[in-house]
């Protein structure tokens, strides 16, 4: 018998904790163990109560004024102390850039495994965690099994549905951890980014512009269609990086992954890194002048044509067909 028990979730984002609690509840049910939510910060009582009535059997808190504001080293020392004391068998981390750093470093300190960006999680017949994730730039999905505990997996936002509120209320346990490592880095400035990241991965319709868009101003034709459909506009990595038209996150394997009801790719060739970020879309429409564009291989609707003509014409056609009579 393993000395490790319990399925934990941790993220600096409460929304992600609530989503991961859904999966944690399922795994804990099969393993006949408890779910735990780990909360690190300052003045965390209100969030602790919310988690305790959203599927967490235990909410373990490390609540200290020294933890006001995220710092990797400080948070990591709190995390490591909590995990060493309570010995969970599974820890799910919210797969944000901060979360992935903590997961990787915690796993190193414990000499255990870590699988980032899991698209699904399950158990094998021995009750070991089995993870799935996209590899080789999106051309494959790899399944791994953990052979040492604790088993650490990172879960991107919106992978699982948010846990509904429960009548049963979990117990809030103050771990009383008060010793933290000092920071080895000094954050001198933090500027919020105005990127639509949060909105993009929740949008029902996403219209994405690629290299086929000649000027940044031309995005207004995508914006016009997107407004009509109540959607969001996104872009590919080259437009952010090579052309420096945008700051913040692009859609793709290294950026935001989206799963809208309708994806429309305009002037996108479909490099595998981009495709990996849109794979879970319900319906994919691809518009490209080049008949050989790889994106057509994974599109539901293939439009070989000039996006500058097709996009405004599509908007006009939808308005005509759906006009209130």
């Amino acid at each position: 018998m393993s000395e490790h028990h319990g399925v934990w979730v941790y993220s600096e984002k409460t929304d992600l904790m609530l989503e991961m609690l859904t999966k944690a509840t399922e795994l804990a049910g099969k393993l006949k163990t408890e779910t735990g939510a780990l909360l690190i910060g300052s003045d965390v009582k209100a969030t602790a109560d919310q988690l305790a009535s959203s599927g967490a059997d235990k909410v373990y808190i490390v609540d200290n004024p020294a933890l006001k504001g995220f710092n990797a080293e400080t948070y990591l020392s709190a995390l490591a102390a909590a995990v060493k004391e309570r010995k969970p068998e599974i820890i799910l981390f919210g797969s944000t850039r901060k979360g992935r750093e903590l997961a990787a470093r915690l796993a190193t300190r414990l000499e255990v495994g870590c699988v980032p960006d899991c698209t699904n999680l399950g158990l094998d017949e021995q009750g070991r965690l089995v993870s799935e994730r996209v590899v080789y730039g999106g051309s494959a999905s790899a399944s791994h099994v953990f052979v040492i505990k604790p088993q650490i997996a990172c879960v991107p936002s919106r992978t699982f549905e948010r846990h509904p509120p429960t009548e049963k209320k979990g117990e809030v346990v103050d771990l009383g951890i008060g010793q933290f490592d000092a920071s080895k880095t000094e954050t001198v400035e933090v500027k919020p980014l105005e990127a639509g990241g949060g909105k993009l991965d929740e949008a029902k319709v996403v219209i994405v512009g690629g290299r086929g868009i000649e000027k940044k101003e031309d995005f207004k034709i995508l914006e016009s269609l997107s407004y009509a459909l109540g959607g969001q506009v996104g872009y590919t990595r080259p437009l952010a990086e090579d052309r420096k038209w945008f700051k913040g996150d692009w859609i793709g394997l290294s950026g935001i992954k989206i799963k809208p009801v309708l994806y429309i790719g305009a002037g996108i060739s479909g490099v595998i890194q981009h495709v990996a970020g849109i794979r879970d879309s319900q319906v994919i429409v691809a518009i490209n002048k080049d008949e050989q564009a790889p994106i057509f291989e994974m599109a539901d609707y293939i439009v070989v044509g000039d996006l500058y003509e097709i996009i405004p014409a599509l908007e006009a056609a939808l308005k005509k067909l759906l006009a209130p009579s």
Partner: protein
Amino acid sequence: MVRVIVCIKQAMDVSQIKVDTATRRLITVDAPKKLSDFDKNALEEAVRLKEKLGGEVVTLTLGPEDAKTTIREALAMGADKAYIASDPAFEGGDTVATSYVLAEAVKKIGAFDLILCGEASIDSFSALVGPRLADRLGLPLVMYVKKLTLEGDTATVERNLEDSEEIVKVKTPALFTVTKELNEPRIPNLMAIMKASKKEIVMWKAADLNLSAEKVGEAGSAIRIVSVLAPKVERKKVKITGQSASEMAENLAKALIQDGVVKQVKM
């Protein structure tokens, strides 16, 4: 003077991977190998620092013996010397085992100011080895660096998190993982390629690094691969036809309405 260790990986060229459609298995045997994309950004930055401040750039790789060919490209880009940890015992290692080997190799390479790694490798894209290596060596770490300046023993770096942009100051020695925005890697000219053929590549086996056998390869790994399969592609691939852009657009609009993915429009 600055001494930089750049961790570089010989990765599979993911754009060249073929799939056996019947079994969904990948055909990786003859997939070409290349220097992983973001590792080139790490290397370019190291070479620029050396050109500005003087010093040395060395590369560190864990990989098969044939990685030498790929690593020559790094030497042509301006690295002075390459170290490759290569041993059949390392095969099947996950990031726990890989970071252990790299950490021991770094200790053997000796004093340095910076270790630079790409944000992730293009094939496995785990972004784990950089932070694991930093933690094993007890180094300050900043991930996803997109701008780097070094003055004396203080590095100032900029990075994007999902919803914010940060400027962070760090005392060296430190480890950074870098993104593609950092710079535009140079393409070596013929002269540089010829010079590279004379540079030294040091090969280390497990015994050269005094590694414990139970901590490398599959024995030293915390996860095992169950399967690697191409995802199922179940797309309709319907080609929208029409005599003109407006006719095609109308046919597309009808299809989207019929599928129920567009139910209303704002006029």
